């Protein structure tokens, strides 16, 4: 028995599905950010696995840039959350109704 590309892709899909469930069920914005981190990590595993099994470094480069994007997302998102918490005292998705959507 050997670990193939499909094993890693299935694992990546499972983690992606866990992240999707988190995105769909969370109402707290900080917890929602955690779920998006899970989504990004799941795709990273897929990229690294394809890079390894196709003998190609491009997948690793993509994963590298995804990590950079995740880092900047956290910086900007946490800043916005702090401003929102200072203004409203809550970080709840349900109170973001100022646009009357």
């Amino acid at each position, binding site marked *: 028995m050997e670990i193939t590309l499909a094993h890693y892709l299935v694992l*990546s899909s499972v*983690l992606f599905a866990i992240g999707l469930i988190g995105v769909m069920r969370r109402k707290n914005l900080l917890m929602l950010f955690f779920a998006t981190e899970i989504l990004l990590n799941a795709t990273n595993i897929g990229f690294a696995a394809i890079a390894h099994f196709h003998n190609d470094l491009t997948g690793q480069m993509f994963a590298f840039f995804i990590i950079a994007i995740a880092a900047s997302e956290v910086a900007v998102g946490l800043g916005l959350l702090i401003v929102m918490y200072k203004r409203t005292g809550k970080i709840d998705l349900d109170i973001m109704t100022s646009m009357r959507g």
Partner: protein
Amino acid sequence: MFEVVAFYLFAALTIAMFTITVMTSQALYALTAMAAGMIFISAFFFMLGADFLGVVQIIVYTGAVMALYAFGMMFFDTTRTMVEKRENPRTIFILGVLAATLVVFIFISPIISTHLETQYPLEAASGNSQAIGMILFTKFLVPFEVAAVMLLVAMIAGIVLAGKKMDKSLTLMAEEEIALMGANEAKPDSQEGAH
């Protein structure tokens, strides 16, 4: 053999940790479980021969991102149990299962239909970090610089958003007071311009 054992062990651990992150109602449990999950994910990178990526994963995610989230948790005081309103949890689970099957098809279909072609093959002679450096500074130089500018923009945005007026509590002020504060700040600038 060892690879099989390691793969299944770390797969089970990662899935368990991320499930805790998504399902728990304690923010502290979610944070620590996600930090552990990030470390376990780096094990997959090491198994796949992506040493540099694994090290970056540990340093950036469990070093920087988790520290930022810990700071955010202390700031937001989410250590108590969160009360999240749920209307219909069954719909969410059905949607999740549907999304999972969809994602599996998305991943599997290009592998079956067409065979991917190797663009930048791995060189057996040099190590992973060396090969990454060679490709990063030749083929991916422009995206690398753009990513650097993006990180700089994100850093400035974070400082401006979080660092400004840390001494005043915007939650305890009324909307008029905030507007007045903004007007007072704008006035000295215009006087400076007049001089």
